[in-house]
């Protein structure tokens, strides 16, 4: 491999996408907009209010007075018919029917309803004279590192490395093939190794920019700090960029049409968008699916990035994920070299 052709090819591979406004938007602006949007939607809210309706009757006022004394409760008195529709529409979490025995009406499939039931039961029983067995103090905790946005940023980084590898390598290669530009290049004395190395190196350069952009943004807007070593985070990012670059070349190795490679890329990316824990933890899927989910390269990348960025773990502790990524990247790369068509 000669240095000058490699450098010229690399510069071309970096310049071209930067001159496409839509690429700049999707690669650099979109992830940050996504982080802003989701960061606002899932920001830590003050303790939530619980709405409760009391069915009008002889003891309704008395019960309402007791519940209104609790700052967390919003109380209204309704007739039986109205209370039923308020419950159905979700305007109230729970309906109290104050007669002997007391009736709590609620829909147990709503998470807030069970909380409301437990809370109101406690308030009413205490007012009726129940004694606490012991005293307890409530301490509210909301530390950086435990918030949703902390979980999200490494996931977005992983997602970006995946789609960057697929679009920046897979799509770009097939585009060059349909333009006969690949054929024109092999008709020149360019060496194939120079081309492939420049392609992968362009991903590494973009990875560094994306990683720095997201982490700096996270630091200034959401106070996110990298708890582990920054070098370890960069190394995992590098491995991710190369792995998905390799998968990108594999997907592009034979496709003759843009439609074909777009289909293949979606086929590869869609399962990882859903299962690999970008927006929520991959642990939420059933036990049975876990071996397959854990074997996906994006799951490994996201897990390793989160372990280093939020949990402050060492690179060494992530050796399982790192080996997995090396395997994915290496196998893809070897197969694509075997199958790759220049014409």
């Amino acid at each position: 491999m000669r240095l000058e052709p490699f450098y010229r090819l690399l510069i071309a591979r970096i310049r071209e996408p930067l001159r496409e406004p839509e690429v700049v938007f999707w690669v650099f602006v979109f992830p940050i907009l996504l982080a802003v949007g989701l960061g606002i939607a899932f920001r830590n809210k003050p303790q939530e209010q619980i709405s409760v309706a009391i069915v009008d009757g002889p003891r309704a006022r008395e019960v309402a007075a007791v519940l209104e004394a609790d700052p967390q409760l919003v109380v209204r008195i309704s007739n039986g018919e109205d209370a039923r529709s308020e419950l159905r529409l979700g305007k109230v979490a729970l309906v109290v029917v104050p007669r002997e025995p007391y009736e709590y009406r609620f829909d147990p499939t709503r998470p807030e309803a069970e909380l409301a039931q437990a809370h109101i039961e406690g308030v009413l029983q205490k007012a009726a004279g129940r004694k606490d067995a012991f005293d307890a103090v409530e301490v509210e905790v909301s530390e950086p590192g435990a918030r949703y946005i902390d979980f999200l940023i490494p996931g977005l980084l992983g997602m970006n490395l995946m789609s960057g590898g697929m679009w920046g390598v897979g799509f770009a290669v097939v585009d060059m093939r349909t333009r006969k530009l690949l054929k024109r290049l092999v008709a020149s004395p360019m060496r194939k190794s120079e081309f492939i190395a420049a392609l992968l190196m362009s991903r590494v350069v973009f990875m560094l920019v994306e990683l720095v952009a997201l982490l700096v943004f996270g630091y200034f807007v959401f106070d996110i700090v990298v708890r582990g070593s920054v070098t370890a985070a960069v190394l995992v990012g590098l491995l991710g960029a190369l792995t998905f670059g390799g998968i990108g070349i594999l997907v592009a190795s034979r496709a003759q049409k843009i439609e074909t490679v777009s289909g293949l890329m979606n086929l590869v990316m869609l399962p990882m968008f859903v299962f690999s824990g970008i927006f929520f933890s991959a642990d939420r899927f059933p036990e049975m699916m876990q071996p397959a989910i854990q074997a996906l390269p994006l799951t490994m990348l996201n897990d390793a990035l989160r372990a280093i960025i939020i949990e402050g773990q060492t690179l060494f502790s992530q050796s399982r994920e790192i080996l997995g990524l090396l395997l994915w990247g290496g196998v893809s790369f070897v197969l694509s070299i075997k199958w790759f068509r220049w014409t």
Partner: protein
Amino acid sequence: MTLMQSAMWCRDLAKTYDGKVEAVRGIDLEIGVGECFGLLGPNGAGKTTTIEMLEGLLAPTRGEIEILGKRWGEDDDAVRQRLGISLQETKLADKLTVEETITLFRSFYDRRRSVQEILELTGLTEKRSSWVVKLSGGQRQRLAIACALVGNPELVFLDEPTTGLDPQSRRHLWDVIRDFRRERKTVLLTTHYMEEAERLCDRVAIVDHGKIIALGSPRELIQRLGGDHVVELEVSDAPRIPIEDLEKLPSVRRSYREGDLLGLAVKEVHLAIPALMAYLGERGSELEHLSTRHASLEDVFVSLTGRHLRDG
């Protein structure tokens, strides 16, 4: 030919796609150093398949090729250093400038020319900072040729360099090709414009259905028609005139019929026309149109195949 130093040759070159479509059916060629050689033929004649096999981009089904003294597979890197190639319809990267594109291709070669020199040679100096996507068709073709010449090649392959260009851009491109030919470069080009082959090439091979049907200098091929001139006429009863009769007229070497049009290859127009008039008068045919012109390679193709080049 044997006295000439050979830049490349091929023998019995053939390509069959998918075991059935015979695109090229046995082609023999030898091109001398410094020669400009044209493969002329209609679309689908097998020109691009032939040139891509010679360029080492397509594996032949059978046959031998030697380029600059080497076979493909022996030392491809060294051969490619000495070749300049412009493919048919390559779309270079849209968002690189002319200068960036030339600089990229230049980096692959050992014996390079300066970017400035190439820009001047191809008339692209003013466009050096324009993105490729903003260039006209003619400018893109000149850029493709610039990329083929930047490595200072000994042998240049140009596949349909002027297809789809307007007449002015085409003439501009011919000037570019003539300019670098002054440096004793060997050129192999394909075209389906006979005028282009006549203007640029020392020798041409006319290709049809994957075979060479005529080979020689444009001058020789035209002379083989038997006359330098073509007389074309339309008469009221053209379909009923036996064309053998016309060949008996003085100085007429060949005749052909193309629909309502009759064509004669003629050596001396001033002898043939009066005789033709007398013949038509005798028959009582009414002359509707008559024209004479110099014979071209188009006439050679028509006389060999009964079709026009553009008809495909």
